[in-house]
């Protein structure tokens, strides 16, 4: 069993928001034990009562028993044959400022696998994060969950107080850095111990791909705009998985006519800020775009680099087929959310995604749904160590 040195999480410079006040003596425990699953289920039930908070409810669904069971099945499936998984030890997670619930998803995966997890929350965290932390605190204090509490700490310290980042970086076995390029750059100045590993989530951009059809009814248009609304407004366009552009597939003339005619009616649902959108329009037009509404621009002959998008509006690209897209322009995208795409086209999209190193292909309206596989990283493998048991020579030696 790995053990932790004494690091206290409750002093003038560091606030314990929930969980245990220091690193435990033993850093690892058995994966997917009954109390762990029961604990998450209890959290799930409590969070589900906050119906007015969609991001909290989404987390509650993720933590419910049936979903945890499917994660466990995936975990077990990885242990076929001689390959076995063991907890990595101490996981140090640096949560992002814009996605309040994200820390809890990754913490739950780390915890289920038997790791000790220290999560540093952001100063920018919002009400959702506070609500989740309060709930965690209450349930962790129950006697029956004391062993889980012993392996979980949720802390806040000013990011100027680098000594905590330094100490935890040197002690941890896995360092999980959310928060984009700048945060990664800043945190990676502090070395890990030689066996430690970083799991990083850099800045990413995401797009929607929609096959247009002139026969669309109002009901279909409504479904499209609802799905887009979910992906754009749940966490705002600042989130890496929220769509910044829509790639329309179909006849250019038909799609242009549709956008010019109807887009200005659909778009207000997405709640863009008017001033930020004006800046977005000016920049996008300067890059060669044509305004079609208060927050949208058609870019016909060029595809600006997605990383220059100011995240307050939508770029619209129109192509006949997915094969016509320039792979270079979309290189490194994260999530592709699709709408009205048939099986054959889906296969082409899968090839496109792979060619531009895209990380995730999903349905529009579900782009933000968290997954064990996130941003190209399989968190079950990343948060554990893999070893071989019963090597072949042992089986064959008689």
């Amino acid at each position, binding site marked *: 069993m790995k053990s932790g040195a004494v690091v206290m999480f409750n002093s003038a410079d560091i606030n314990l928001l929930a969980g245990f006040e220091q690193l435990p003596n033993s850093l690892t425990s058995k994966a997917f034990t009954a109390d762990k699953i029961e604990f998450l289920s209890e959290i799930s039930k409590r969070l589900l009562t906050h119906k007015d908070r969609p991001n909290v409810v989404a987390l509650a669904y993720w933590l419910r028993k049936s979903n945890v069971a499917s994660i466990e099945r995936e975990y077990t499936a990885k242990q076929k044959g001689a390959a076995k998984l063991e907890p990595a030890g101490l996981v140090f997670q640096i949560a992002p400022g814009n996605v309040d619930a994200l820390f809890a998803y990754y913490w739950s995966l780390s915890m289920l696998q038997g790791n000790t997890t220290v999560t540093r929350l952001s100063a920018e965290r919002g009400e959702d994060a506070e609500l989740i932390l309060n709930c965690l605190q209450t349930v962790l204090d129950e006697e029956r969950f004391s062993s889980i509490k012993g392996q979980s700490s949720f802390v806040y310290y000013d990011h100027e107080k680098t000594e905590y980042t330094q100490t935890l970086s040197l002690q941890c076995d896995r360092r999980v850095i959310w*928060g*984009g390029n700048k945060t990664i750059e800043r945190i990676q100045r502090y070395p890990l111990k030689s066996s430690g590993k970083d799991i990083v989530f850099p800045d990413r951009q995401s797009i929607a791909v929609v096959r247009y059809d002139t026969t669309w009814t109002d009901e279909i248009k409504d479904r499209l705009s609802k799905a887009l609304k979910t992906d754009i407004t749940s966490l705002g366009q600042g989130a890496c998985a929220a769509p910044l552009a829509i790639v329309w597939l179909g006849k250019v003339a038909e799609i242009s006519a549709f956008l010019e005619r109807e887009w200005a009616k659909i778009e207000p649902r997405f709640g863009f800020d*008017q001033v930020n959108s*004006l*800046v977005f329009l*000016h920049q996008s037009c*300067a890059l060669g775009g044509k305004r079609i509404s208060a927050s949208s621009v058609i870019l016909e002959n060029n595809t600006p680099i997605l990383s220059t998008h100011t995240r307050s509006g939508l770029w619209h690209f129109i192509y006949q087929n997915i094969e016509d897209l320039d792979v270079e322009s979309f290189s490194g995208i994260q999530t592709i959310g699709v709408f009205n795409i048939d099986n054959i086209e889906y296969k082409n999209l899968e090839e496109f995604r792979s060619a531009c190193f895209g990380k995730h292909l999903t349905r529009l309206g579900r782009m933000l749904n968290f997954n064990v596989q996130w941003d190209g990283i399989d968190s079950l493998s990343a948060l554990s160590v893999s070893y071989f048991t019963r090597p072949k020579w042992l089986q064959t030696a008689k």
Partner: protein
Amino acid sequence: MENSITKGCRVKMGDQLTLLADDEVFGLNAKLKSEWLLSRLNDLTRHHVENCQPYANLLKGMGYAQVAGSLGEVPFVHTRLFKLLELMSIDRNAVFKTLQSSGTTSSGKSKIFLDAHTARLQMKVLTQILQHFTGRQRRAMLIVDLPPVQGGETLSARNAGSNGLAFLGRNHCYAMNTDGEIDLDAVKSFFSSHRHEPILIFGFTFMLWQFVTTCRDNNLKESLNDAVFLHSGGWKKMLAQQVDNETFKMAVRTQFGADIKIHNFYGMAEQTGTVFVECEKSYLHAPAYAHIIVRDEQTFSELDENQQGLIQVLSALPESYPGHSILTEDLGTIYGEDDCLCGRKGRYFNVMGRQVVSEVRGCSDV
């Protein structure tokens, strides 16, 4: 655009900018001004369309007309665009100076590219506008800031700014020592050697306040009979200390005499040269080289007088970059045109502070 700058225009029109006569700077009524300025601004729009591809794209993509029928129709660009793109209407080799300003709301610095011609134009017009208030004779000048760092390239923007106005005066004295403290001995000696002459005191509003309160706390009282206080910079820090413009003026007058002229001025790096100076009636005034429009924060349509909205600034000067019409992030109210009790023509207004911009929460916040 032509390169020559001559002075003494009696409201002529044409491709090149002829500087206005001194009495025209605040002497053109709305009709004369809009004829002269609109023609100049339309020339500038055409010039930038021809010489700056992103600007031409912007106008086309937004559906903005190139030729405006009134000042309110001159197409504008949002000030943040200068942070996102490098906009210039000159060859990169002709860049003489790049101004950088940080602004306060969003990250990144705006970049303004000047060639020698536009820089010269800005300087001439700035001098003409400020001399309207300080007089053409150069005054002995007390600069309330640190002395410039000799040979140092790391001038802070503030330090560079206050030294940028040194040309307005002579016999310069710096009121602060290199540690940023008010140097009372230097100030006393400046006052005693220029007691009977017109003097000019310049500094950023917040520094001048520090200067005045330090003099007050040290009982340094002077009766300056012909002094002009020029100051600029935001009121944010001042209002945090519960100091508004009237309190500020009162404190200055208590310390240095009731007849002192005090002028605040408003301007931005994106339109250096055409500054808006506060008159005796406490309104900021648009000189004939510039114009001000207030727009609705949501719809961006032009608002009437006495309504608060986003300030758009128009300037006759920017030739090397497409910044002749900019929508700012400042909030203000126009109170009238040509009929200010101070007697100056042009629109008069006040600035109420900066718009609260909802930042897009990005991943990289920690």
